[in-house]
């Protein structure tokens, strides 16, 4: 059965691995130049490309590896040929899933290793930043493109493709559904799961002269929100002003409106450099800034948890596929 699986799987598998080799060569050439630099602005394209590739890989694995391996057989009827050799359906599916999942995890692991290594100087610098100028490795988009989470993504995508193929039995339809479901899961993970798997840390920060890094207002001079300096290397979930009773406030009370220049009104602009001090009077009225965040040192615990979640989802889909398999004809 391994022979047949390999015979069917080798073209898509080798195509993807050939692509990985090309990516590896590009990263291997450009990577050493990044060490010791502090300005990476000329690397925007490659950096963006690495992120894109990390998300493209699970999609390719699910759509072009997972779906055809099973759905094409069911669609063309060859399953009735192979199931009537001396091979049980369970062994047929088990071999396909085993080979495919291992290949998917290997491909994702290698790619993630290369990208994580290539981007390590950039990540290290982003890790020091306390504003939102650079995306650190805890930020939602980068997080799933580093470390071991991509391995879980790829395994899940493959099993998803197989399961959808078993349900729909039509290759093209299964490809489309796999893509949509995979995108939904990859989107739901940072939005609905990752912030909550470990309880976020909460800081109530007093305003000082220097910790306000952003003020947002509208053209009527109303200040809608301010942001304070954030912990370095963290994924900040909320950065909001709370009143003495702990409720979030927006817009801010009107006694700070005079702190910022107001082009629309005939009010003399406040002296430059005094904005911080002016805003600090929020503290005198009991206002604080509430910052909830996942600190940078949780990168690996969160990676392991997310890998475990994806592997658990894959196991669930595997169980479902074997269950459905018994009643296929």
């Amino acid at each position: 059965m391994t022979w047949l699986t390999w015979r069917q799987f080798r073209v898509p598998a080798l195509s993807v691995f050939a692509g990985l080799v090309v990516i590896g060569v590009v990263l291997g050439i450009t990577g050493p130049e990044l060490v010791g630099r502090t300005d990476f602005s000329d690397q925007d394209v490659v950096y963006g490309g690495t992120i894109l590739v990390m998300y493209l890989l699970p999609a390719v694995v699910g759509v072009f590896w997972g779906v055809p391996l099973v759905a094409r057989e069911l669609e063309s009827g060859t399953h009735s040929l192979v199931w009537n050799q001396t091979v049980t359906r369970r062994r047929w599916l088990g071999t396909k899933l085993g080979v495919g999942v291992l290949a998917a995890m290997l491909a994702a692991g290698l790619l993630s290793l290369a990208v994580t290594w290539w981007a390590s100087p950039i990540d290290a610098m982003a890790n020091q930043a306390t504003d939102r100028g650079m995306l650190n490795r805890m930020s939602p988009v980068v997080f799933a493109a580093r470390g071991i989470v991509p391995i879980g993504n790829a395994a899940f995508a493959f099993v998803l493709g197989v399961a959808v193929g078993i349900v729909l039995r039509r290759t093209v339809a299964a490809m489309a559904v796999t893509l949509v479901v995979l995108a939904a899961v990859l989107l739901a993970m940072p939005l609905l799961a990752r912030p909550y798997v470990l309880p976020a840390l909460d800081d109530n920060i007093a305003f000082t002269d220097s910790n306000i890094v952003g003020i947002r207002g509208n053209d009527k001079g109303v200040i809608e929100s301010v942001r304070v300096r954030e912990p370095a290397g963290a994924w900040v979930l909320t950065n909001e002003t709370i009143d003495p009773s702990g409720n979030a406030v927006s817009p801010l009370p009107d006694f700070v409106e005079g702190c910022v220049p107001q082009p629309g009104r005939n009010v003399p602009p406040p002296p430059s450099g005094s904005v911080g001090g002016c805003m600090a009077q929020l503290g005198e009225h009991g206002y604080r800034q509430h910052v909830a965040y996942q600190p940078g040192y949780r990168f690996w615990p969160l990676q392991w948890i997310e890998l475990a979640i994806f592997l658990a989802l894959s196991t669930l889909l595997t169980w479902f596929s074997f269950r459905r398999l018994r009643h296929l004809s």
Partner: protein
Amino acid sequence: MTVLDAQGLGKRYKRMWALTGCTLEIEPGHVTGLVGPNGAGKSTLLNIASGMLEPTTGTIEVCGGVPGSGPAQLAKVGYVAQSAPVYSGLSVEDHLRLGARLNPGWDDELAHRRIERIGLNPKQHAGKLSGGQRAQLALTLGIAKRPELLLLDEPVAALDPLARREFLQDLMAAVAEHGVSVVLSSHLVADLERVCDQLIVLVDSQVRIAGDVEDLLATHHRLTGPRRDVDSLPGDQHVISAHHTDRQTTVVVRTEAPILDPVWTVAGLTLEDVVLEYMSNPATARPALEVLR
């Protein structure tokens, strides 16, 4: 000892029954034809026997085991589906390699000899084969696996008359050589007449009659005589069909006993006539279920 033993077998798809109350016993060493109109349940029966489908009701035992229950069972039963599926991306040679890898009892020499005799190019991709060649390749996989029972669903449907005859001759040669039992379905009696010694007629998802071909021919008669009521026939004469004109009555009956009534003109029926009588008269008063001997 039977190769196929079905008791009250039924299969329901959503709300429609594709097979109901099917009771059959097939002895080893026979070539059994399964005949019936389109949608009569022939494929369903073969699919259940091969383990591709699970029956909704009843039980079935094939070569002493539950169909599709494990590798040992799968090794005993060969099945070629109606569409004769092959992997279009794999060459003929690859298919033989597939058979060798997936079947412990694989007869590689037999497979290669067959491919050579049929004239298939081992290097050719299966997707480029003609319908007849595909059917031959699928049959080769089924035979070279050396099963005890070979189930063929409409094996000649895609073939032209010449290829049809060659395919069936070839099948007969294989049967004679390896002593395998065969059940094959067709909606054309002419195909089955040449190769089958047993016949099962399926109509409206039920077994209408099953038996030895010779017996079927010997026990069915067409009686023609002056007009009379068919209820006045002796009790051992099962009426399959009856036609009346103003003065004449024609009945087709099945009976073991000789026809003694001198008013009848007795004529025999061809196998095709017998099958057509059962197909076109699905609702007879007396059920004509019989077990194969």
